[in-house]
């Protein structure tokens, strides 16, 4: 590969006669500015106008709610993977002795850095990144989101789930024909098992 070391030439440091005159350059600068006045504006009038964010955007992490119940099985993996230790949870057993659910699930939004690692490691696709980014609080206690604010219905998160199914899930290794309802362990009716 032809990579060279190129030295500049001395003339690039010298001003021409017009440059030395000083004033023409000031007018050149003005002309540039005036030209830019007539260009279309790019400023977004936030919050009246919102940016157009696709499903790939990583907003605040939320829990998927399916059939009025969380998908989460309280395995604790997201809390382990979270770099700034934003997630804390307390597991409990459901009526079915085979399953567990998170009794308490809290994400401290002041600690969260929106890295998406929780979503990446979750074995149940129970925690995903929502497009929601503009939320605020007046108190530090308000910033700890519990299950009441974290649980979002699956229908609302469908764009992100579709995006993940397409982009992330099958990308390398063997192509496995995976059935989506595998992710709903906790929802399964085991009365006839």
């Amino acid at each position, binding site marked *: 590969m*032809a990579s060279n070391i190129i030295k500049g030439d001395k003339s690039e440091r010298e001003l*021409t006669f017009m*440059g030395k005159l000083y004033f023409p350059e000031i007018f050149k600068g003005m002309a540039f500015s005036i030209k830019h006045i007539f260009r279309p504006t790019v400023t977004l009038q936030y919050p009246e106008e919102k940016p157009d964010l696709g499903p790939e955007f990583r907003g605040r992490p939320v829990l998927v709610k399916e059939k009025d119940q969380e998908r989460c099985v309280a395995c604790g993996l997201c809390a*382990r993977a979270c770099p700034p230790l934003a997630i804390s949870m307390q597991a409990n057993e459901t009526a079915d002795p085979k399953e567990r659910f998170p009794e308490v699930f809290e994400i401290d939004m002041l600690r969260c850095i929106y890295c998406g690692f929780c979503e990446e490691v979750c074995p149940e696709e129970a925690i995903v*990144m929502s497009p929601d980014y503009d939320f605020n609080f007046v108190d530090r206690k308000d910033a700890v989101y519990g299950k009441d604010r974290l649980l979002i219905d699956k229908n609302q998160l469908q764009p992100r789930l579709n995006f993940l199914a397409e982009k992330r899930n099958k990308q390398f290794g063997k192509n496995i024909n995976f059935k989506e309802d*595998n992710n709903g362990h906790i929802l399964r009716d085991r009365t006839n098992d």
Partner: protein
Amino acid sequence: MSNKVYAFRDKVNLTFFPKHQDAIYRRLEDKHTSVEVDEDPLGTLMTINLGPQHPATHGVLRCVIQVNGELILKSVVDVGYLHRGVEKLAENKTYQEFMPYTDRMDYLAPYSNNVAWCLAVEKLAGVEVPYRAQWIRTIACEMARISAHLLWLGTMVMDAGAISMFLWTFRERENLYDLFDKMAGVRFTVSHCRIGGIQYDLSDDIRKGIINWKENFKKEFKSWKKLLTNNGIWYRRNIGIGVVSKEDAIAMGFTGPSLRASGVPHDIRLFEPYLVYDKLDFDIPVRDEGDCFARFQIRMEEIAQSIRLLDQLLESIPSGDIRADNAKHTYPSKNEVYYSMEGMIHDFMMTDMGVCPPKGAEIYSAIEGPKGELGFHLISDGTGSPWRCKIKSPSFSNLQMLEKMLEGSMIADTVVLIGSIDPVMGEADK
């Protein structure tokens, strides 16, 4: 210590970290003096704190300067206001968990940092990365270089007094960030690189988006060049200011564009190729003068070279996987995790234990970031987190030269000098 010598120290009331403040002022007053001199007899010397909140210092850099009129006689540069203990954090996180923290070091080119970290860990643990992933990383690294240089260009010209240029470069940078958003999911702190590959694939739409942006940017870039070439004001603010000789540059550890502006043709992309740089054509601009203007020229040419690299990189992206398929080194694909017990076990093992390089392994791996040589020195003790992580950050080593550059120059040049070495305090202070 007689009161006569430490004149300034006795006049101020030190409340905030008094010992540290005291040491700084003492160092300033002691500089370049070998004999005890009488207190400035005419009272013409003045001590000024430039920063840490001064907008022209590009973050929280503090320069304490002693001036005689407009002339800077002595200076002491104080870093550390943005210290977050990143190296220590690395020792307490798994290799994978630490990756988002690197975004927050040189926050103007997060992707370069991600890549530098992942390459270091991959070298340490012997992870093979698929060719396509390396290719996409190279694309993103060059985009990051352009975006970092755009910010430098805008702020540097603004430091010299022209504010509108800043708005124009920021508009282009915004477009670049939109592309990062489409590619990685977030505009700024991308966290897109993974040990053993990357997170999501680069779709053809995004590739076309980058090509469109690039064609548009070429025109913009040409017009900026036209504005700054032969511009008397700009030339006079830069030529002959802050000259750093070749010897000084090497002795004080200058890196990156600043080093090349002093006549040392060192670029890691060329001499120790990483990623896919050995497959690409690009030139290394070098200048001998070592002044602010030379540093400006180098960075402008580097933008042009990055565009040239993007031209070659985007023509066609090799097909293949984007992450290594080895459960001991990287996460398995999500389908495998959802489907099979082995996949799930690997998912848990990777999260809890992470990549475990061999015990005692020790490496140094560096890349050419936008600011210069960004290196990681890692020592493994066989567990999932490094036993020691030392970060060689380019901004920190570039700042070592600043004291010497400031002394003997005018007050009005300080902002241009700081702008021309382009420090990012998030990285210098770590």
